[in-house]
């Protein structure tokens, strides 16, 4: 009898631990582990796979990090990521247009995109302050509208650099612009480590660590704590004399700027600027990555970003190769859609985190 009760409590504790970690997260982590174990067995080269995963991690991590400030201030998941991406794209294209080359063009792009990110972020934050409670849906549509608006702008804005415009017409930007000669792999090649087939883009990872440390430090300053307070208990925050609207505005501007930097880092790894409809669906992978990492609609940490990006990108890179080698059938796209959107659904429906 006694033993039975003890077993019960052990089971309960197990269940509690699983509930704490989240069942979907456990399944995803287990799935990725299985993929890593399977990959050498089915004849895929493990080091290549690992370096692919790390590479993709380094491209995407800052985009995922862009979720953190807004979640902290209670603005929910930043489905409006494309708005920040657009300021990044403006920075990238202007940097090329103004004739910056090599590594300098990367920093020029960051500098140029900053004012855009601040202006768009201020507008976006102002809008989100007017519609507290309905942020996520409106953020999605703000992102979509801005992407489709910029589709027109990419055609109409007077860009002239022959590397970017359509050759025949001499105007209108191309859909993809190669970054060769500009900032292609400028961070990745910095202190790159190569061991056999394993290569690690040290520079990109260092850059991410730098920015992540910055955000971490910021969240521990007085302003940062106030921001977290606004997110976790607005009534208390107001009583403590924190200006809620201002904090939310600041967090939105930060998220937008991080998205701008994030897309530039993504481009330097990928080697191309993608315009027009490309930023359209970039919010969803970033949102689900941070959720996979253990974040929820109103709680997110830097650790969530790192774990989540690694798990998500791991699955995205590993499934096609392993699946292809195993059953000659590429189901990775379907798995990616189901996993990423399933994760978002899970986060949206959890009872404890329902909108206050």
């Amino acid at each position, binding site marked *: 009898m006694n033993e039975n009760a003890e077993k019960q409590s052990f089971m309960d504790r197990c269940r509690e631990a699983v509930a704490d970690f989240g069942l979907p997260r456990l399944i995803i982590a287990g799935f990725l582990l299985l993929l890593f174990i399977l990959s050498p067995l089915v004849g895929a080269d493990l080091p290549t796979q690992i370096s692919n995963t790390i590479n993709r991690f380094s491209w995407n991590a800052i985009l995922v990090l862009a979720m953190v400030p807004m979640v902290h201030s209670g603005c929910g998941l930043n489905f409006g990521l494309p708005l920040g991406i657009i300021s990044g794209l403006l920075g990238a294209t202007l940097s090329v247009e103004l004739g910056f080359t090599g590594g300098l063009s990367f920093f020029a792009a960051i500098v140029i995109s900053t004012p855009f990110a601040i202006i768009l972020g201020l507008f976006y934050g102002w809008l989100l302050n007017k519609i507290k409670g309905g942020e996520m849906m409106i953020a999605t549509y703000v992102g979509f509208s801005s992407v489709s608006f910029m589709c*027109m702008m990419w055609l109409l804005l007077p860009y002239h650099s022959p590397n970017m415009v359509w050759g025949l017409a001499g105007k209108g930007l191309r859909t993809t612009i190669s970054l060769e000669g500009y900032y292609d792999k400028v961070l990745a090649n910095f202190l790159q480590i190569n061991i056999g087939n394993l290569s690690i883009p040290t520079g990109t990872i260092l850059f991410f660590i730098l920015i992540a440390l910055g955000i971490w430090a910021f969240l521990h300053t007085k302003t940062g704590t106030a921001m977290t307070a606004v997110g976790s208990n607005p009534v208390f925050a107001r009583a403590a004399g924190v200006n809620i609207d201002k904090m939310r505005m600041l967090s939105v501007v930060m998220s937008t700027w991080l998205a701008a930097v994030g897309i530039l880092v993504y481009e330097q790894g990928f080697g191309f600027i993608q315009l027009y409809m490309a930023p359209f669906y970039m919010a969803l992978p970033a949102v689900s990555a941070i959720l996979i990492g253990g974040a929820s609609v109103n709680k997110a940490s830097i650790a969530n970003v790192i774990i989540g990006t690694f798990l998500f990108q791991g699955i995205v890179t590993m499934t096609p190769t392993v699946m292809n080698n195993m059953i000659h059938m590429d189901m990775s796209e379907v798995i990616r859609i189901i996993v990423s959107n399933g994760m978002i659904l899970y986060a949206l429906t959890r009872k404890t985190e329902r909108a206050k």
Partner: protein
Amino acid sequence: MMNKTDSNKSTVQKIGGFLGANTVPIMFILICAVCIPLSGFSPSYLLNEIVTRMGRNTFLILCLLIPIMAGMGLNFGMTLGAMAGEIGLILTADWQIVGIPGMVLAMILSIPISILLGLICGKILNMAKGREMVTSYIISYFINGVYQFVVLYLMGPVIPIKHSSLKLPRGYGIRNTVSLLDMRQKLDDLIPLTVFGAKIPVATFLLIAVLCLFIVWFRKTKLGQDMRAVGQDMEVSKDAGINVERTRIISIIMSTVLAGFGMVIYLQNMGNIATYSSHSQIGMFCIAALLVGGASVDRASIGNVFLGVTLFHLMFIVAPSAGAKLTGDSMIGEYFRVFVSYAVITIALVMYETKKRRAKSRMAEQLRLDQLKESEVAEQ
């Protein structure tokens, strides 16, 4: 008190209120007024196009009304019904049942799939009360993944598909386009009628009329009344003995089933299925059209549907060529109409949320005043 303030309102305020409530339709009338002369299309061409598109889309848009009635907002999950309709059509295309019988069979096949998907969607939405829209929007993506899994991998090995013309060259999975040539516009041409050079799809309009009548009738039934009560206030309806969760699920299931029918009608007009993309944009365009008609997240009528479908598709027809005339680039107009669809949804959502917040703060203010009064009374 309410009446008094109403009568005190000046005419200017009334006009202002009317403009404020109808910002989106008025904006659209202006856009169309500018674009029509620029596009250079003849009135008979425009009439023809609008009538065709009305027949094609109205049924789909009508299915959005029921969840709005139940207070669940714009049902982005109508895509689920569209997928069910597509699966029905793919199967009938494989069984080579053509014309009207094929359509009817496709609709019948779509019903159980729609009910199942609607049930799932409704259950999930009940877990996410207060953020139904964003959740239904993500559900549509999630189920799209499941749909791709079924159509791309299960059709062939698990679900028998006989005709290789439907299958991908690798032997399983459905091709990117499925031709519905034997079904093309069979319903539209069932009762032929031409007015002013415009072909009127009479039978399709009859179906739409039946659905409109059904919705009008449904509003008056016990279930319809329950739904409206739930839409007004969930807590009060629960106290009144209405099973809130069940009512909400039923409203979503009804919307999904109707969307499945609507998709069959839509695709018989198009004449082919883009297997992996037909449904993906349909939700967005239907919702945008409804909002253009002056509907909001919590209030939509049949009138909104018809006004919306006319204005929205008028803009859709004229924008590309007007854009091409203005800037010399045909893509501008294409992007412009996509931008306008998204912008309309954004504006409508923002207006709805600000209205909701204002009402909430007004209520809080009222409560504060009441409390103040009470304490004054107590002091005396």
